[in-house]
């Protein structure tokens, strides 16, 4: 059972910044995701793993490997992923 499960999922760490880090109390969350998960699917997994993120998911963007990622991009285990809340530079 556990072997079959691990064959179909992978672990992915998602970095959190600013108010998201404060809300959750950690600078990153580790998710267990089905192979083939896209950027657009990430919100539902984040909501399930950490309900305190829910109010911020709609206004946050996903970055993959240091750039904002399109919704259809498929996530890979080696990706560096971050949830970017509304920015405030300048």
């Amino acid at each position, binding site marked *: 059972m556990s072997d079959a499960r691990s064959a179909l999922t992978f672990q992915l760490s998602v970095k959190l910044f*600013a108010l998201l880090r404060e809300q959750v109390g950690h600078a990153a969350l580790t998710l267990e995701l089905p192979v083939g998960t896209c950027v657009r699917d990430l919100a539902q997994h984040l909501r399930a793993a950490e309900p305190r993120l829910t109010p911020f998911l709609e206004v946050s963007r996903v970055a993959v490997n240091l750039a*904002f990622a399109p919704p259809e991009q498929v996530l890979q285990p080696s990706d560096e992923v971050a949830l970017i809340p*509304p920015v405030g530079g300048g």
Partner: protein
Amino acid sequence: MPVCDTQRAWLQLGHEPLDLNAIHAHLADPAAGGEVVFTGSVRNHHEGRRVHALTYEAYPEMALAEFGRIAEAIAARWEVQRVVLHHRLGYLTVGEACVVVGVSAAHRQEAFEAARYGIDRLKREAPIWKREHFEGGEAWVTNCSGCH
């Protein structure tokens, strides 16, 4: 203009005060007829609150990557000589400079347009956040009025 060409694009993110003399020196170029330097600084008011300081933090690797993409986009759209994008992090009090976008170009129109594009895109896209310290409290504030 490739981003790795540090002769032409100088990108920086750090805790040290911004060095406007060094920035002007970098922008100087024999082919440039002018330079436009936008400097953003900490303001003493925001939405009716009396602000005394801001604390900036960033996702530094991505912010620098974004600065590089902005410099590339500027070079692709306008004929510019040199570009500077610097942002300061940490605790800054009223009057301190937090961001500089500088462009030198043969003609002023390109320099003004490119600098305007640079600061606008930086404020929209760079993963940098600020916590406002005001009279009576503190809060995260964003550049997107409809976002929270």
